[in-house]
């Protein structure tokens, strides 16, 4: 139990978080591309990719929301030991973690202000699978169009309509991740 809490982090944090961030950045800059992110072995039910995202982006300065299913004692103590991120409710979080249905509705989260649209939440969505098919994506970062197996369409369209406000998404499944910024048109 304690071994599981203390283990599972990056063995070489500086280099592995740099590599993981490049995956996240490429994903956010090129919506619809799949990136492989390795190095973290967090306790179940957290995927390796989601674990790496938490290790790379979260610390004591980033309030984190865990939805039911992820709000377990094991995961809380793993996150506390490796990142120190305070666990908060959805309305105050900078990052939220969970399955799509549990994360809904999007109106729970901060979307930024018109003067500071960057003060918005990033949702880390654990997916049963992640493929380059399904919903069509267009927008910055995409040459003509891309496809991604999104869980639904309407909430993303509503989120994009808020631009420049809105939340951003990182989708994780196993060691794979993809991302969807608020600028992407989904249809």
């Amino acid at each position, binding site marked *: 139990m304690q071994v599981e809490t203390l283990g599972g982090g990056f063995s070489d944090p*500086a280099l592995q978080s740099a590599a993981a961030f490049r995956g996240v*950045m490429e994903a*956010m800059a090129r919506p619809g591309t799949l990136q492989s992110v390795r190095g973290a072995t967090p306790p179940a039910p957290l995927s390796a990719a989601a674990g790496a995202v938490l290790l*790379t982006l979260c*610390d004591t300065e980033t309030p984190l929301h865990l939805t039911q299913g992820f709000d377990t004692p094991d995961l809380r103590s793993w996150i506390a030991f490796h990142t120190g991120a305070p666990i908060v409710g959805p309305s105050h979080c900078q990052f939220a973690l969970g399955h799509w249905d549990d994360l809904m509705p999007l109106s729970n989260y901060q979307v930024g202000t018109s*003067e500071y649209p*960057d003060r918005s939440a990033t949702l880390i969505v654990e997916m049963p699978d992640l493929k380059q098919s399904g919903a069509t994506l267009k927008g910055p970062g995409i040459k003509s169009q891309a496809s991604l197996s999104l869980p639904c369409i309407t909430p993303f369209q509503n989120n994009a309509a808020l631009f420049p406000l809105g939340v951003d998404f990182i989708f994780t499944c196993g060691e794979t991740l993809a991302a969807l910024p608020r600028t992407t048109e989904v249809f």
Partner: protein
Amino acid sequence: MNAQHEEPVTMDQDYNFAYLDEQTKRMIRRAILKGLAIPGYQVPFASREMPMPYGWGTGGVQVSAAVMTRDDKFKVIDQGADDTTNAVSIRSFFQRVAGVATTTRTADATIVQTRHRIPEQDLVEGQILVYQVPIPEPLRFLEPRESETRKMHSLEEYGLMHVKLYEDISRHGHIATAYSYPVKVEGRYVMDPSPIPKFDNPKLGDCAAIQLFGAGREQRIYALPPYTNAVSLDFEDHPFEASKADHPCGLCDAQNSYLDEVIIDDAGGRMFVCSDTDFCTMRQADGHKGKDAA
């Protein structure tokens, strides 16, 4: 200068990888992601003291440090040149604190940090262009108060910028702004592309590489994802024009590269040479010869 690759030197173990501590890198990385999600919007970040003065590229250095991995090939240009003081010292800084390989070849680099130029050679997917930015706020010289410029961005109130360009026309007969020429990103935010010549502006939009902008003293990061729309501001009757000195390069005879004017004696002699040293060197190696070539 002979273009060359330098293998990674052994990293100085007294520093964390890429100099910055991990918490600082996380903070910068979060700012970069929000910057990519809101193209052209300036994200505030807690810029750190770097071992070089403000104005020497501390913003670009912090962004490069936050995105760099051990496998990268790093190139630095200062006004297009690989061999000027700023470029040489930043390159050796990262050789020392990150043990990263460096290159002067644009095509081989994965990260290009730049001061005031975009390389002549088209960038490709997988490359990252990091700009050093002195004044990130395009409206700053028109409105000195940050509280006001922030409000103007939030209300999309860019009339003042058009007035400035119009005053250029009424005074000079054409838009006299030659560098830091403002662009509108995805029809929303007006962005300062850093003091690149307006000749480079058409390369900002629809670029295959990720473009990141770091302003250290002003504590702002902003970004253009690949294939993002960035339109130089203009008027229907005075369309934007990417201008350059009307000469070929004296060394490589390139007709379409951005040129530096170099004074070569005290009798009014001058020559025009490519500002992008790598581009010029490659062309000369391919056998192109300008009228001033030795």
